[in-house]
């Protein structure tokens, strides 16, 4: 059923079935769009770094602006200690951004609208940040759960709340991105379905809505990638500079 708004999120196999020890790792449309967005990122930034001109061209300017944008973001949130993690956060931001943006193309598949993808990314960040925290501060990293200036009576409750909030980080991070992308694309599909079913007579209202939604979704695509990257920076900041 083409009008089913959830149909666009279906994952299906492209090409032959690949199995390693009964585990299916076939190439799917999701994999295709992961590869496409990675290739687009590499092409754009390779073109942007090929020519070394003092006065940059369009591609060079794009690459250099993104570079300084993310380096400023890391510097503002995690300080100068966050510099070694620049290339990871840059890749993360660009990957999420390009997956979101390519998903806006008609008939395209949105990689980030699948909870498993965002959850793997978020879990990787969570585990990595926790390991960095323990390496940098040893067991002193556990002080993160004990905020200073809290009355002793309240302390057990606060510690429990802090631990829960810390453990829910990967879930909130992944669900935020996945839910935003899925809801936006579903909304667009639903309004697109209205245009078809109401036809020439009444289809104009949902069509104009659909146009407005497209603009909103492009904004959301950028914003969610930004939020994903900046939250990673904030978690990294907690691990690098223990403030509590």
């Amino acid at each position, binding site marked *: 059923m083409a009008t*089913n708004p*959830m*149909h666009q999120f279906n994952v299906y196999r492209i090409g032959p079935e690949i199995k390693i020890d009964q585990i299916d790792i076939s*190439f799917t449309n999701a994999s295709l769009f992961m590869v496409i967005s990675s290739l687009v990122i590499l092409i754009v930034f390779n073109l942007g*770094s090929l020519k070394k001109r003092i006065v940059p061209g369009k591609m060079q300017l794009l690459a250099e602006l993104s570079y300084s944008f993310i380096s400023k973001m890391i510097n503002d949130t995690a300080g100068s200690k966050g510099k070694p993690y620049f290339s990871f956060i840059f890749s993360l931001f*660009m990957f999420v951004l390009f997956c979101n943006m390519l998903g806006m193309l008609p008939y395209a598949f949105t*990689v980030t609208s699948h909870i*498993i993808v965002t959850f793997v*990314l978020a879990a990787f960040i969570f585990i990595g940040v926790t390991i960095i925290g323990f390496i940098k501060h040893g067991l002193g990293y556990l002080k993160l759960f004990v905020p200073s200036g809290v009355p002793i009576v309240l302390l057990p409750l606060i510690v429990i709340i802090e631990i829960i909030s810390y453990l829910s980080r990967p879930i909130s991070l992944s669900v935020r991105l996945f839910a935003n992308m899925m809801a936006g694309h*579903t909304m667009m599909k639903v309004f697109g379905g209205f245009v078809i079913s109401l036809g020439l007579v009444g289809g104009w209202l949902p069509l104009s809505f659909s146009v407005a939604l497209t603009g909103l979704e492009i904004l959301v695509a950028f914003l969610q990638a930004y939020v994903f990257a900046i939250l990673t920076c904030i978690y990294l900041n907690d691990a690098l500079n223990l403030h509590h």
Partner: protein
Amino acid sequence: MHKRLVLYLFILSLTFFTNVNGAESEGMPQLNPEFWVSQIFWLILTFGSLFIILSKFVLPKISNNLEMRKSQILENIETAEKQKIESENKIKEYETLINNSKNEARNYFNEARKKIIQDIDQKREKIEKDINQEIQNAEKEIIELKKSSPEKINKIATETSIHLIKQLIGEEINNSSISAIVEDLSRKNKEKNYGN
């Protein structure tokens, strides 16, 4: 008008519910674990290779570019400042040179003028001396001539008159008497000519 709006809203809600029912029937494909492992595998593969290529090859180039530009701009500013100072020094040098040469030229001019004036003065003095001497000589000569001229005239007059008389009358007349007459006449003429 109201009827049409109500009808429109009814159709809108109807289509909405049919769409939502369609979604319900199939459920969320995101929660179907059939391709989860495949997605995780390809995510790790693509994102990992993207991260490695970006961090090893692409990002260093961009950061190099940025730093190169920064350092080059700083260098350019430095050289520009250096050149500015140099040019200011050159301008000062040039001005001093011009002033010196102006002074020299003025000195030369003054010297030359002095020399010329001296020369002119010397020559003028010489010439004036010469002229004065010549004037004096000429005056002397004139005075002498003045002194001697009446006597000579008288002599010539007596001689001519003797000759004239001789030819007219054919007789020789006493020299002294004729000269006396001539002197007398010339004295009268002199009084006429020079007398005040």
